[in-house]
């Protein structure tokens, strides 16, 4: 039978709601904090993944879903007209060059329409795409590399060949754009169609795409109708409809869309953080409502006596929770969003993500609100049930103070002493106690993780990745990271000997660098084939062993120019210890090494060369004198990053020679020089080296202090985010403690009066309550010390895995920081509460419940 009892339940709820002011305040704060955290984490997480996706898209070099790489013009037209193609851009590959400035990062000469340039982030930001025959638009770093100013109208000279015909031409720059060489390690040059037609006369793309240089092939990059999940199917349809051979067309899906967009690491981290937030929010909200229901147990019992059903009582509790949500969640969403927006730029710059994420979408709010509501409802479920199950008879006698019901006797006779009483009091409600302790420990543990993470940042390890002495002197290019380092010969012996002459300089340790040319033969050829096999397998995992062999057989390794790169470093003897320290294979024999017939291997070209092999290469010049060296051992090249050219060449390998091997060269390139100075002279040298280098604008220097400053700001940014989040979680824990303590003392008003009546002085009463609080804290700390350190150790190691700049550092600091605060709270709060309940006289308090 239905009856209309909604209004009365609502009315009861409202009255009960209004009667619980302090509970409401706590619950509201709890809901707001939980929502703030959830929203902030979502805002940050989603923006971060958006930023990363954009970075990924940029690193794949295009925003479109699929490329048809090697089409003929006719095929391209057919594909373009296919109804499934949503939008497309076209480009013709003229040729690829590795001459001159393109030695390290090849130059690709194309034609391109506006769409194509747009899709591939290569639309000129200054100027426009070429129209006239002699015009060219290019990536701006090419101008830098050619030592030309970034201006329109510059004349660029290029040497290249098209299908065997060599060309040497001058072009006028009509447009350029910036690109990140780390993401796109090649140079794009766009020429006009008019010139392309001339250059490609007599070239048949249908022929060249069979592996013979790909001259004149048309690339069509497109977005396809339909969802991403249907993408492959749709592309197959297009190929079938147009009758194009899929192998020959070189269909390439954009890897940026392969992933779901969210990095797995971020998902895991976000899930973990959200889980922690939900748990601590749950602990708090549950405890607040649980305590509130227990306090109002007589009220619920009374309602039941006069005929309120279990369901209606549940409704009374839930309605109050929803009422609080109605206020708390919107406020939390807003604050959380603002917090997230404030932290995003910090996080982005910390992770060196340059792309500003799109404004967060409404999903954040829906998801945040849903999760917060879910947490509140789950938290209230238990207490609501409890309210519904109240037995009307027992409720009248209930004082909220029953000892653990299972216990009937208690051994011992010393329990009447105050510390013992306090101890027993904690466990009167194990549930309350465990909730508070769990809630406090979660905050502490999280705080510890963040603190340890920040503290585990190893300055020395970090610095070793950047500088190994007090000052690092090198050409400006070396510091810019704008493009791979190429021998520039900007650092001269003369300048360095001037530096060495400065007062307080102990050592100037040089690193020479040269591009080596290792002929593709013998083991290097085998290595290259292996490398190629790996690459094909990565691109088309479906191929069988045999098919791969066929492709490799067809491969013309001449494309690599008969040589592969050997990055050759020459180390001054000052660095020999450093080499020895970082040996990971073989043994280091100083004398043999200095003899010049041996070398140490750094990057092994993914197994291309091995310790014990003999490698042969010439320095700086393909046709220069070749020398053979035996590989004595292998060092961890990552550990020598600060002494390297900051990139590895693939396919290729890197080796270390003593500097004597360079000094015999006609014009060796000194890549960098590290100055080791007396401690006292460092400040003065900073100025003096600056003055010395003032006349050499192409040379620059960095000091150890610079790197430390940079590191500090990085670390601070991280700390800011971490500590903001765990401050809120710690706050939740503290709030839980405050709420429990307050309600606990309040509900024991009568009992405390009774104790006072039999002779417990106010001082003793306060002492007992303070001790109770301190025991709570002590237990939370115990959990923290036992479980927390284990968890922290695990978490920190997992997070810093693979990052060279971290060493796990056990620390007591979070304890030392938190303990006094918690202790203070444990002392002040009960005393305050005691005073506030003591306003009524003992007699009044004794009578209150009679």
């Amino acid at each position, binding site marked *: 039978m239905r009856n209309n009892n909604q209004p009365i339940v609502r009315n009861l709820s409202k009255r009960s709601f209004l009667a619980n002011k302090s509970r409401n305040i706590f619950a509201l704060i709890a809901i707001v904090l939980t929502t703030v955290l959830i929203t902030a984490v979502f805002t940050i997480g989603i923006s971060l993944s958006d930023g990363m996706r954009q970075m990924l898209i940029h690193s794949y070099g295009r925003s479109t879903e699929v490329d048809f790489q090697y089409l003929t013009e006719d095929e391209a037209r057919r594909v373009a007209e296919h109804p499934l193609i949503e939008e497309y851009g076209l480009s013709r590959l003229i040729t690829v060059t590795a001459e001159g400035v393109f030695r390290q990062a090849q130059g690709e000469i194309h034609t391109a329409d506006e769409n194509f340039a747009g899709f591939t982030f290569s639309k000129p930001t200054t100027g426009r795409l070429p129209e006239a025959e002699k015009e060219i638009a290019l990536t701006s770093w090419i101008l830098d590399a050619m030592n030309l100013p970034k201006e329109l109208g510059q004349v660029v000279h290029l040497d290249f060949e098209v299908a065997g015909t060599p060309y040497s031409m001058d072009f006028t720059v009509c447009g350029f754009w910036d690109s990140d060489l780390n993401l796109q390690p090649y140079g794009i040059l766009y020429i006009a169609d008019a010139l392309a037609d001339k250059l490609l006369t007599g070239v048949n793309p249908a022929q060249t795409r069979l592996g013979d240089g790909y001259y004149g092939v048309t690339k069509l990059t497109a977005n396809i109708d339909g969802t991403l999940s249907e993408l492959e199917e749709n592309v197959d349809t297009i190929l079938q409809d147009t009758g194009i051979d899929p192998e020959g067309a070189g269909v390439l899906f954009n890897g940026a869309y392969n992933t779901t967009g969210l990095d797995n690491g971020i998902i895991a981290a976000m899930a973990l953080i959200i889980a922690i937030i939900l748990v601590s929010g749950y602990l708090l909200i549950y405890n607040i409502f649980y305590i509130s229901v227990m306090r109002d147990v007589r009220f619920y019992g009374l309602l039941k006596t006069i005929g309120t059903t279990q369901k209606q009582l549940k409704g009374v509790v839930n309605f109050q929770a929803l009422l609080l949500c109605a206020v708390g969640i919107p406020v939390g969403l807003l604050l959380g969003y603002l917090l997230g927006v404030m932290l995003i730029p910090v996080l982005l710059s910390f992770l060196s993500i340059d792309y500003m994420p799109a404004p967060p979408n409404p999903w954040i709010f829906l998801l945040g609100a849903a999760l917060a509501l879910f947490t509140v409802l789950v938290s209230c479920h238990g207490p609501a049930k409890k309210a519904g199950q109240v037995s009307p008879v027992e409720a009248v006698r209930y004082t909220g103070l029953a000892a653990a019901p299972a216990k*009937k*006797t*208690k051994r011992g006779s010393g329990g009447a002493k*105050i510390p013992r009483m306090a101890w027993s009091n904690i466990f009167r409600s194990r549930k309350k106690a465990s909730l508070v302790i769990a809630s406090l420990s979660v905050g502490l543990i999280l705080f510890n993780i963040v603190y340890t993470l920040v503290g585990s940042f190893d300055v020395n390890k970090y610095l070793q990745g950047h500088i190994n002495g007090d000052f690092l002197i090198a050409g400006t290019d070396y510091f810019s990271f704008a493009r791979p380092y190429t021998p520039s010969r900007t650092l001269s012996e003369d300048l360095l000997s001037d530096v060495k002459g400065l007062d307080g300089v102990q050592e100037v340790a040089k690193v020479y660098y040269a591009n080596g040319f290792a002929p593709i033969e013998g083991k290097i050829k085998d290595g290259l084939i292996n490398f190629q096999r790996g690459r094909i397998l990565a691109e088309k995992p479906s191929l069988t062993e045999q098919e791969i062999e066929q492709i490799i057989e067809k491969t013309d390794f001449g494309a690599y120019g008969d040589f592969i790169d050997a990055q050759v470093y020459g180390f001054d003897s000052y660095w020999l210890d450093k080499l020895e320290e970082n040996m990971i294979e073989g043994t280091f024999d100083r004398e043999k090494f200095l003899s010049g017939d041996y070398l140490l291997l750094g990057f092994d070209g993914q197994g291309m060369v091995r310790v014990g092999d003999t490698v042969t290469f010439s320095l700086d010049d393909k046709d220069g004198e070749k020398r053979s060296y035996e590989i004595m051992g292998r060092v961890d090249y990552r550990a020598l990053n600060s002494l390297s050219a900051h990139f590895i060449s693939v396919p290729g390998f890197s080796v270390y020679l003593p500097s004597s091997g360079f000094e015999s060269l006609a014009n060796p390139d000194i890549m960098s020089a590290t100055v080791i100075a007396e401690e006292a002279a460092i400040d003065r040298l900073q100025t003096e080296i600056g003055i010395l280098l003032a006349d050499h604008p192409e040379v620059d220097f960095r000091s150890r202090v610079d790197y430390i400053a940079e590191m500090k700001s990085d670390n601070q940014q991280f700390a800011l985010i971490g500590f903001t989040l765990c401050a809120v979680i710690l706050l939740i824990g503290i709030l839980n403690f405050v709420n429990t303590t307050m309600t606990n003392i309040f509900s024991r008003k009568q009992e405390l009066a009774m*104790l*006072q*009546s*039999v002779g417990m*002085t106010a001082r003793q009463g306060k002492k007992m309550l303070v001790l109770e609080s301190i025991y709570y804290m002590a237990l939370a700390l115990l959990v923290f010390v036992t479980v927390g350190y284990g968890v922290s150790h695990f978490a920190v190691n997992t997070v810093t895995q693979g990052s060279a700049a971290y060493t796990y550092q056990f620390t007591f600091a979070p304890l030392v920081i938190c303990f006094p605060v918690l202790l203070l709270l444990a002392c002040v709060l009960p005393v305050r509460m005691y005073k506030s309940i003591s306003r009524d006289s003992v007699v009044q308090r004794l009578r209150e419940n009679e």
Partner: protein
Amino acid sequence: MAVLKTESLKKYYGKDPNTVKALDGVDLEIQEGEFVAVVGTSGSGKSTLLHMLGGLDTPTDGKVIVGGKDISGMTDEQLTIFRRRNVGFVFQNYNLVPILNVYENIVLPIELDGNTVDKGFVENIIETLGLAEKKTNLPNNLSGGQQQRVAIARALATKPSILLADEPTGNLDSKTSQDVLGVLKMTSTRFHQTMVMITHNEQIAQLADRVIRIEDGKIFAAKGR
């Protein structure tokens, strides 16, 4: 010698015009070793009088002299200490500490005072009250009569000179009431204590040496036996 004495004792609650005169000028003398019953209707002020005598509440005006000492001027802290050394309370609703077992509840006031427990004496009380078997029980596992006996034992444990009982049998059935009263009377005689007991049961009041009747905050009549 009068161990308990009040001089024009007044206790007013609330403010004009709603003042409630719980006690309105009570002069009373109780001799050492005397057993006095205080009777009166509810709201007559009998509980207030008891609280004043035990230093649980402070008078609005007048004096309370216990053992020759005026306690009406004492601070809260002083009163509490005075109480646990000189006065034993027995309440209608027992007021035991739920987390302490029987023995611990009994010695609580001694421990609070920081004294060593006179074990022989306490054992004697426990024995006398028939609680020997229940020493380790928690209060929630005792019957009402047993709980009241624990409360009496607690009141006696500090060897107070004065025992104040506020309707000690109010929550008990008649059989248990008789029991508890017997125990109270026996112990007060045995330990030579002055006892003031509130009751509204005339029958119980008859057990006392003297009955004081209070109405509207004033002593209505006192009759000796």
